[in-house]
């Protein structure tokens, strides 16, 4: 296992120490717990707080989206582990400015149970809490069972949209509404080429043959829809785009934002080769591209692989997507 680390048990805490040391003017922590990350500086009066949380090992997910025009706090779990309800509660208390807090997180059992517990506890402390659970991986459950779908890279769009809305001092209900709209408009599908290793486990949690790929695999190695020989990248994109396009469906005349996400070890060179084919297909389908995000937005440590996400835009989503935003892991000028 070739990782830069000291003791595997301290992997997450040392990572957070590094992050806080590198960005002391941007990030801080609450309740004397390094794993309760919040935006540094003063709270904006009357602004809805947005909190997320989830396992480590997915940088820039989740804490990387705590920043201006984005999220206000993040409870950080162990590698691929949910943070605790306690930690979520502490983040909630630290970021609430009276306007309530929206939880946005991915559709995973452990996270749901803990955010449910945290929401119950927060309500006992008189903090208004609403929840939006993101799940857009079309490979993880068939159409009609959208509620069972895993949340993957597309959650970035939900953060961006909700963050912009909250920044404009919209109400908790309004922020929740646009977050739900973003969820409803986004679809993702991925493909994995190699596994990754959880530091404390020390060996891959699954194997994949030397010339194999798995289409639809989740970011923790959850099974996909097809394992087979590694195809040419254009053929892979053909398969992925077919599933994504017919799922929402995305139609002629639609305008989309495209996210091509690298899972970790896959170089940017390859992501652009993938995007080339995505763009050709969209062009053929008469779907126009408003803008693109190509890089690492939700990873699985050193896993090789990629995913494609489409967000169907309307005027409101486009306006919210375009606004300036910045965190130590993501910077966007006004589009």
């Amino acid at each position, binding site marked *: 296992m070739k990782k830069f680390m000291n003791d595997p048990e301290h992997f997450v805490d040392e990572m957070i120490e590094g992050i806080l040391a590198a960005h002391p003017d941007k990030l801080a922590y609450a309740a004397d717990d390094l794993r309760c990350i919040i935006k540094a500086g003063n709270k904006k009066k009357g602004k809805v707080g947005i909190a997320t949380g989830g396992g480590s090992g997915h940088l820039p997910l989740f804490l990387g989206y705590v920043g201006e025009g984005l999220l206000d706090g993040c409870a950080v779990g162990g590698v691929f582990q949910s943070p605790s309800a306690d930690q979520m509660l502490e983040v909630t208390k630290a970021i609430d400015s009276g306007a309530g807090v929206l939880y946005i997180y991915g559709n995973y059992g452990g996270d749901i149970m803990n955010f449910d*517990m945290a929401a119950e506890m927060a309500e006992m402390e008189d903090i208004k809490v609403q929840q939006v659970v993101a799940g857009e991986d079309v490979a993880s459950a068939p159409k009609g069972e959208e509620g069972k779908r895993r949340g993957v890279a597309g959650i970035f769009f939900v953060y961006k949209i909700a963050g912009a809305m909250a920044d404009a001092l919209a109400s908790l209900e309004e922020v929740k509404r646009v977050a739900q709209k973003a969820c409803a408009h986004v679809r993702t599908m991925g493909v994995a080429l190699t596994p990754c290793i959880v530091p404390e486990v020390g060996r891959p949690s699954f194997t994949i043959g030397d010339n194999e790929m798995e289409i639809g695999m989740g970011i923790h190695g959850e*099974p996909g829809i097809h394992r087979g020989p590694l195809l040419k990248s254009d053929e892979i994109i053909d398969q992925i785009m077919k599933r994504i396009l017919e799922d929402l469906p995305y139609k002629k005349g639609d305008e989309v934002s495209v996210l091509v996400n690298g899972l970790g070890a896959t170089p940017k060179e390859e992501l652009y080769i993938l995007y080339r084919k995505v763009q050709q297909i969209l062009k053929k389908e008469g779907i126009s591209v408003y803008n693109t995000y190509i890089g690492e937005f939700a990873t699985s440590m050193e896993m090789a692989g990629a995913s494609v996400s489409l967000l169907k835009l309307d005027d409101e989503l486009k306006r919210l997507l375009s606004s300036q935003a910045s965190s130590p892991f993501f910077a966007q000028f006004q589009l």
Partner: protein
Amino acid sequence: MERLNIEDIRSIVRNLKIKMDAKRDYLIELDSAMGDGDLGITMSKAFTAAKDEAERSAEILPGKLLIKLGMAMAKAAPSTMGTLMATGYMRGGKAIGDIESLGTGELAGFMDAFVNGILERGKSKPGNKTIIDTLYPAAQSLLQAQRNNKSLKEGIAEAYTAANRGMEESNQMKAQHGRAAYYQDSSIGKQDAGATVGLLFIEVLYEYCR
């Protein structure tokens, strides 16, 4: 042994930690097959935290101690199973109230609340290939033993048999929850990691009271 007192509970928690440590790799393997492979680590963490809490706490009432164990587990191991276990301990502890020791009836009440807490938190039900499928039969068997005025030793022995039967039956179920659900039909015939934890939980009780 006719009843479990506060020191028995401390010993059982210690034994649970030892058992989970010993089964660490086995649970990792089971959870790797249809999950993320962390179950051995989280159970080891959860029960280490519970044992530490049991040793640290000066609590003299079983119910109160069990709630504290649940809170310690929730902090230490907030995975699916850790959170469910924690919920079980907290609900179970609350259910038995201020009694000073547990006989068949109190243990049955504890286990029943334990299982219901998990069902509520996990929004699941028996038959979905989860920890419930070993714990629920065990709890039902204890309730039956109470009705039949069985001794603690007998009750637990029967519960262990029921849990083992549940384990076997769960192997043929199709997973509906958590990561394993993504495996759909191919989960049938495979052993559920969480159900195994449930069985180990009863096994430690059984070994202690045997």
